[in-house]
C-alpha cells in the first residue's frame, strides 16, 4: 500500500480537526501566512501606516489666518524649522543626550563590570534583578521621586545644607548655562533625572558584552606579563566597547524623544519632545510637530549607522 492509499483509507475515520490539521500541515505556505498574516498586517497598517501619515503630515502646512491644516504638498513647514529658536531647541536636546550618554557609560561600567566578573552566581541573580526592576517599573513615578528629592525644601538641599555645602550648591545654580532658581528647575536637575531613568539601559548591554569576554583571554594577557591595568585597557575595554555603544543607543534615543522629564523639572527652555507636544496640542500645528519629529529620526538614523560600524548590533 502506498502512503496515498493509507491516508485515503484513514480519511473516513478521522475527525474534522485532524483533517484540517493535515490539510494545513501539507501546505507550509498557508500555515506561514496564517501565523504571520495578523501580526504583519497589524504592523504594516497601524505602525508603518502611521509613520507614512507622519511623513505626509510634515509636508502639509498650517494656514496662519484660519488656523486650519492645508492639505497640500509644501516644504514651507520644513523651512520653519530653521529658526534660531528651533535650532536652539535641537542643540539643547542633542547636548543633553550626549551628556547623559557619557555620564551613564561612566556610572554603569563599574557596576556592569562587577556583576559580570566578580559577583557569585547567587549575587549575580539578585543584582540582575536590581537592575531590571527599575528598568521595567513605573518610569513616571521614578521621575516623580526626583521632584521630591530635588525640590528647594527637599532632601537633597537639606543634606547639602547639613554638610555645610549650601554655598557650593548656590554657586553651581548661579552658573549661566546649566543653573536655575533651584535644582528641580534647572538643566542640572534634568540631567540627573535622565541619568537616573536611563541608567539600567546602559548597564545591561555592557554587562552582556563583558560576560562574553573569555576568561582565558584575560589569563593569557596576565601570563604574557601584562599588569591588571594593561589587561583592562587593552583586552577588556576594547571587547566591552560595543556593549557601551549598544547601551548608548538607548540612552541617546530615549533622552532625545522624552518630554516628561524636561516638562516636570525644567524651566521654560524647551526640548524637542516638548516642542513636538506643544505644536500638536495647544497650537494645533500638527504639520510643524511632524516636521520637528523628523529631526530626532534623522539624528537616530545617523547614530545607528555609526553604531553599526562600531559593532554595537552584535552586542545587543
Amino acid at each position: 500500500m502506498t502512503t496515498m492509499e493509507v491516508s485515503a483509507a484513514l480519511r473516513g475515520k478521522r475527525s474534522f480537526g485532524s483533517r484540517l490539521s493535515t490539510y494545513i500541515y501539507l501546505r507550509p505556505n498557508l500555515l506561514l501566512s496564517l501565523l504571520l498574516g495578523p501580526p504583519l498586517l497589524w504592523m504594516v497598517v497601524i505602525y508603518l501606516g502611521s509613520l507614512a501619515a507622519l511623513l505626509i503630515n510634515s509636508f502639509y502646512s498650517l494656514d496662519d489666518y484660519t488656523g486650519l491644516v492645508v492639505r497640500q504638498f509644501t516644504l514651507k513647514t520644513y523651512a520653519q524649522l530653521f529658526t534660531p529658536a528651533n535650532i536652539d531647541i535641537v542643540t539643547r536636546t542633542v547636548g543633553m543626550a550626549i551628556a547623559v550618554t557619557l555620564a551613564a557609560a561612566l556610572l554603569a561600567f563599574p557596576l556592569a563590570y562587577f556583576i559580570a566578573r566578580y559577583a557569585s552566581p547567587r549575587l549575580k541573580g539578585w543584582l540582575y534583578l536590581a537592575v531590571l526592576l527599575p528598568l521595567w517599573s513605573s518610569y513616571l513615578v521614578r521621575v516623580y521621586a526626583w521632584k521630591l528629592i530635588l525640590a528647594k525644601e527637599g532632601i537633597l538641599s537639606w543634606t547639602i545644607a547639613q554638610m555645610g555645602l549650601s554655598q557650593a550648591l548656590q554657586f553651581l545654580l548661579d552658573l549661566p548655562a546649566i543653573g536655575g532658581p533651584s535644582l528641580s528647575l534647572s538643566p542640572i536637575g534634568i540631567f540627573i533625572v535622565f541619568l537616573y531613568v536611563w541608567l539600567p539601559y546602559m548597564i545591561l548591554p555592557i554587562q552582556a558584552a563583558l560576560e562574553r569576554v573569555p576568561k582565558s583571554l584575560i589569563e593569557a594577557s596576565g601570563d604574557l606579563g601584562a599588569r591588571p591595568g594593561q589587561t583592562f585597557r587593552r583586552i577588556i575595554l576594547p571587547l566591552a566597547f560595543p556593549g557601551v555603544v549598544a547601551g548608548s543607543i538607548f540612552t541617546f534615543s530615549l533622552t532625545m524623544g522624552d518630554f516628561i522629564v524636561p516638562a516636570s523639572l525644567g524651566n521654560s527652555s524647551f526640548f524637542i519632545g516638548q516642542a513636538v507636544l506643544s505644536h500638536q496640542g495647544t497650537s494645533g500645528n500638527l504639520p510643524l510637530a511632524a516636521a520637528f519629529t523628523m529631526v530626532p529620526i534623522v539624528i537616530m538614523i545617523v547614530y545607528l549607522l555609526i553604531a553599526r560600524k562600531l559593532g554595537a548590533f552584535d552586542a545587543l
Partner: protein
Amino acid sequence: MRYKMRNTVSDQASLPLKVAATAALLFLHIPVWIILLYAFTTDEATYSFPPPGFTTRWFSVALERQDFWTALGLSLRVAGVATMAALLLGSLAAAAVYRSKFFGRETISVLLVLPLALPGIVTGIALRSAISIGEIPFSFWTIVLGHATFCMVVVYNNVLARLRRFGRSLIEASMDLGANGFQTFRYVMLPHLATALLAGGMLAFALSFDEVIVTTFTAGQQMTLPIWIFSQLTRPRDRPVTNVVAVFVILLTFIPILIAHRLTRDAGGTHL
C-alpha cells in the same frame, strides 16, 4: 610567585570598584524609598524634608478620589486589552519566525522592535498624524492600538526565546504518536510555552499600565493613570494624594515584574 600574583587579574574586586558599583546601585534604588517616606508625611503644601510628622490619613483620602478610580479603571482596561492583543499577535509572529525561514524574516524582527527602539514620541506623533488624516475620533481603542503595537515585541521576544529552547523532536514525536497539529499544540507546545506567555504578558501589562508618551498623543481628553500623574508633575495640586498614588503604582508594577522574572529565571531570563 609575587610577580605572578601581581600579573593575574584577581578574583576579588578592588575597593574602588566595589564602592563605585554600590554607589550606582544605591542611585538606582534610593529615590523609590523616598516616595514611600513621603506617602506618610503630614505636610500637604510642599515637599519639605525632614517631614514634619507622619500620618496614614492620605491613603483614605486617595481612596475616596473619584478621578483616581476613573483613571485607574481606564488604565487597567487598556492594559488588559492591549496585553491580550499583544499575546495573540506576538505569539503568532514568534511561531512564524521559529517555524520557517522566509524572505524578509530578519525584517520582521526589526519591524517589531522599532516601536520600542525609536523614541516614544515618534510612535506617538505618528499615530496622532494617522488619527488626524483618517479623522478618527479619540477613543479607548485609539489608546489600545498604540499600546498593543509596542507591547507585541515583548511577548514576541519571550515566546521566541522559549521556542528556540524547545526541541523540534518533541513536536515530531507527538505527530508520530498520532496527535494532530491542534493536539500537539494543546498538549505539547502550550504547557511548555505557558510560563513564557505569562511572563511576556506580565511585562506587556506593566509596560502598557505605565506608558505615558505615546498615550499623550492617542488619548485626547481621556485620563489614564500615568496621564493623571503627569498632570500632577507639571502642575502639582494634590501632593499628598499623588504620593499615595505613586506608592500604589510602584507596588502594582513591581508585582508583575517580579512574577515574570521568577517564571523565566530558569529558562534564560526575561527578554526586553
